[in-house]
């Protein structure tokens, strides 16, 4: 078995490992280009009704489903 592993050149092993690691990195990427603007606008809207401390927006992936989780922290 060790001999079999040795035969596989390390460059192709690197490619396989990188492909998987980067696919997983990209899937968990939390950014959309509009996130900063969305956050600023949300704060403006909510502020009309109640004081806001911070808004935290996260992109969440589960399987094929993408969701935005928006956490509005209120100022006491």
């Amino acid at each position, binding site marked *: 078995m060790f001999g079999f592993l040795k035969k596989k050149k390390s*460059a*192709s092993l*690197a*490619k396989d490992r990188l492909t998987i*690691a*980067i696919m997983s*990195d990209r899937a968990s*990427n939390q*950014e959309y*280009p509009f996130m900063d603007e969305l956050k600023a606008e949300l704060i403006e809207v909510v502020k009309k009704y109640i004081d806001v401390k911070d808004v935290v927006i996260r992109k969440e992936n589960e399987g094929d489903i993408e969701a935005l989780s928006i956490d509005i922290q209120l100022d006491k």
Partner: protein
Amino acid sequence: MGTVIAIISGKGGVGKTTATANLGLGIAQNNKKCIIVDFDIGQRNLDMIIGLENRVVYDMVQVMDEECSVAQAVIKSKVNENLHFLAASQTKDKSVLTSQKVEKLLTELKEKYEFILLDAPAGIESGFEHTIEFADAAIVVVNPEVSSIRDADRAIGILDAKSQKVKNGEEVDKFLIINRIAPEMVRAGEMLRSDDILDILNVKLIGKVAEDKGVIDASNQGKPVILDKKSLAGQAYSRIAKRICGENVPLEDIESMQQGMFKKLAGMFK
């Protein structure tokens, strides 16, 4: 109006500053007015690589804070009059940068220069984000090695999310330089091939640079390796600079080159 190009990498130590210095000088050698700006605040290094560390009086943060003018802070290269340099601040930290200040500085530089190259800090924090925010294009520098390629992909992801051009619905051009290629290792299957790296990263290749001991020797002297006409890395940077200036220079087959012999042996290894 000049073009702003951010030189980015994600991981540190892959040759970003060396690339910035050499491409800046290469562009200047093509008779284009070019300025290289060190955006690595707190870790100034471009001044050493370009050999101008003793000439720095004002830095880019002082320009942004209006403590001096661009003309006062800019340093002219000793080897090419088309190349100017703006140093990073060594005493402050990355938090001094704001979008407004960066945009104002770049707007001013775009009026004066055809190319503005920004040497980004390593990592993907705020200093990096400010470097890419107003860039028209980015050059991504990687080494053919897993950690560099993975980090570069993260940096590209941030570029696609935070660039002002992308936010305006445009695309930011991205080009890849594969640096420090060891041709014998690639031929032996012990180093990633350029094609493999391009399969993984979603960017256009603009050049390949072979591992070259002359790069360290050049940095010791503060004379970019592009000045050494015999150097493989210098020749590679010279070709990339021409491509940036719009010349159609075919991509070279570095992997098939035998070190020291300058001879193509592609046929022998097929």
